[in-house]
């Protein structure tokens, strides 16, 4: 029995990159039945020395990960054109490539310029041409923007490759205190940056709607507290330090309000904090567990998990009418909802035969579709374009991130090379 001394845990705020090594790798486990074949030819480097980044390879990997494209292997390519005049369509017809992407990369000082052209092989015509310019040290992000443009042109859907991920990774120390790290990485897991390292738990990372700030829960003071942190300045602010739970922060779509879970008044309830005045408003008032708030895209209502009916189910609270309605009815455990920007596709954790899966509930048709088949799936996070759901699961005894398309057709894993990875949070679209 020790005195109530709150030891300050060693917390390190790190803003340096972990080096070039990607912490997460991609393994595509299931693609679409008829993905479009596309040849992404290595882009010609027009700067001094060797190219600092293989732009075409980043694009190739992005398109492959979407599951909707089957990039042609470089070893199968019969030529390496980088301008329109060098294209021989028969070379690409011969290897049954439907599309052809070529490009050129040049550098001026610290700036990089990517010019690229997309061709329809059968129709033998250019379908898109574009350029991306920006800092050379952001070469991978420029490449992801090329991917976004190609994806938009060929699917009609805005790409979400030039986005970022937050996740928590844990290095186990059996019999001791684990290491918890909050990491920021590109949407493909590359360029990981450790934002926070602590021997106490770090949880519930989330994004401000403009992608410039993040929120999370840290136990570094010996109890949970909600923090927000500016990604460009590194400045952080502790928002709460109440007795009991301080959890599940969720930014409102206008960025002015943080929904959160506090149990300072007895049982866990949903509260709203005005981020300018820090004034709290209590939303739910129930002796049951109310937790995991998330905002509908219009900001007019909140979804949350409650066991007020006996088992955890999703409810919706309308902020204007102050009324609560139950949303999920199928199954005995539905929790931690996240909603796509369309306000229609809701992803959640759904228990079936004792196993926890990620499911999609269409709020218009009320049809529930189980998307995953592994058994400890949790923390779904939906891409800003609504196409993919990133979630945490266990594979070979390790916590890993995995992704599934909202139609269930495409699946891939992002295993970590060391440690357990969990609680992914997909960023909103990033402004340039």
């Amino acid at each position, binding site marked *: 029995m*020790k005195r109530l001394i709150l030891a300050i845990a060693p917390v390190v705020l790190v803003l340096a990159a972990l080096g070039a090594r990607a912490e997460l790798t991609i393994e595509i486990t299931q693609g679409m039945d008829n993905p479009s074949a596309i040849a992404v030819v290595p882009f010609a480097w027009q700067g001094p020395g060797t190219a600092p980044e293989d732009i075409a390879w980043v694009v190739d990997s992005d398109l492959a990960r979407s599951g909707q494209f089957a990039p042609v292997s470089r070893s199968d390519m019969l030529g390496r054109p980088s301008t329109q005049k060098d294209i021989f369509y028969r070379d690409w017809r011969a290897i049954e490539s439907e599309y052809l992407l070529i490009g050129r990369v040049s550098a001026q000082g610290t700036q990089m310029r990517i010019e690229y052209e997309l061709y329809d092989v059968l129709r033998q015509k250019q379908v898109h041409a574009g350029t991306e310019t920006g800092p050379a040290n952001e070469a991978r992000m420029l490449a992801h923007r090329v991917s976004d443009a190609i994806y938009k042109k060929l699917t009609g859907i805005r790409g979400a490759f030039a986005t970022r991920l937050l996740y928590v990774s844990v290095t186990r120390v059996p019999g001791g205190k684990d290491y918890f790290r909050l990491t920021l990485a590109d949407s493909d897991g590359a360029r990981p940056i450790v934002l926070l390292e602590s021997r106490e*738990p770090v949880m519930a990372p989330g994004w401000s709607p403009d992608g410039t700030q993040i929120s999370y829960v840290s136990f570094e003071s010996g109890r949970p507290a909600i923090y927000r942190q500016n990604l460009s300045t590194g400045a952080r602010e502790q928002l709460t330090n109440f007795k009991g739970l301080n959890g599940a922060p969720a930014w409102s779509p206008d960025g002015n309000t943080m929904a959160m879970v506090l149990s300072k008044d007895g049982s866990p309830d949903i509260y709203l904090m005005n981020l300018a005045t820090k004034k709290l408003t209590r939303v739910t008032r129930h002796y049951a567990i109310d937790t995991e708030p998330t905002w509908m895209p219009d900001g007019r209502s909140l979804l949350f998990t409650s*066991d007020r009916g006996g088992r955890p189910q999703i409810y919706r609270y309308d902020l204007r009418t102050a009324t609560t309605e139950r949303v999920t009815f199928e199954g005995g455990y539905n*929790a*931690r909802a996240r909603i796509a920007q369309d306000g229609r596709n809701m992803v959640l*954790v759904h228990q079936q035969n004792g196993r926890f899966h990620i499911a999609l509930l269409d709020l218009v048709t009320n049809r529930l579709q189980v998307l995953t088949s592994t058994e400890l799936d949790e*923390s779904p996070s939906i891409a800003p374009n609504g196409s993919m759901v990133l979630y945490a699961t266990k594979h070979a*005894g390790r916590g890993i991130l995995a992704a599934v398309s909202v139609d269930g057709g495409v699946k891939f894993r992002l295993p970590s090379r060391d440690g357990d990875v969990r609680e992914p949070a997909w960023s909103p679209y990033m402004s340039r």
Partner: protein
Amino acid sequence: MKHLPVAGKAIILLFTASLLAACSGSSKKEEEAAAAAAAAAAASAQSEQQATASAAAAEQQRLRDAAAAYGNVFYFDYDSYNLKPEAVEALDAHISSMQGNESTVRLEGHTDERGTREYNMALGERRANAVRDYMVVNGVPSYRIESVSYGEERPIAYGSGESNWSQNRRVELK
């Protein structure tokens, strides 16, 4: 608390003895006799106090040992925050060891990995609060208890399956 009245008694004895000495003051012998009596009384009170204090300390130690023998981890069933009979028995021993002193405890609630992390944070808090409420009902003031939930974030056993999960559904008293 037992040693306080003994100390009080000794002070009263000393005070009475010196009062007697000051008032009677006529004979040197009487003064010496009074001083000797006072010293003897003080010495006897002190040894009595020491004996009682060491007996109290021994009793405290015995209660602490008894509580320690039960361990400081109480286990729960899946998705439950009901105290099991063995937890109640162990808690009774811990409550006894907290009586007669002002020690404080920290109750850390934990869950297994099944279910969502935030729901498990709430469940871990319910478990810690179930232990807290039992202690409060049985005489431990709530200001001496702090409860914190760690949900599923700090497992004892890292693997899956009931043999691991059952070790992780717990409240630790620290």
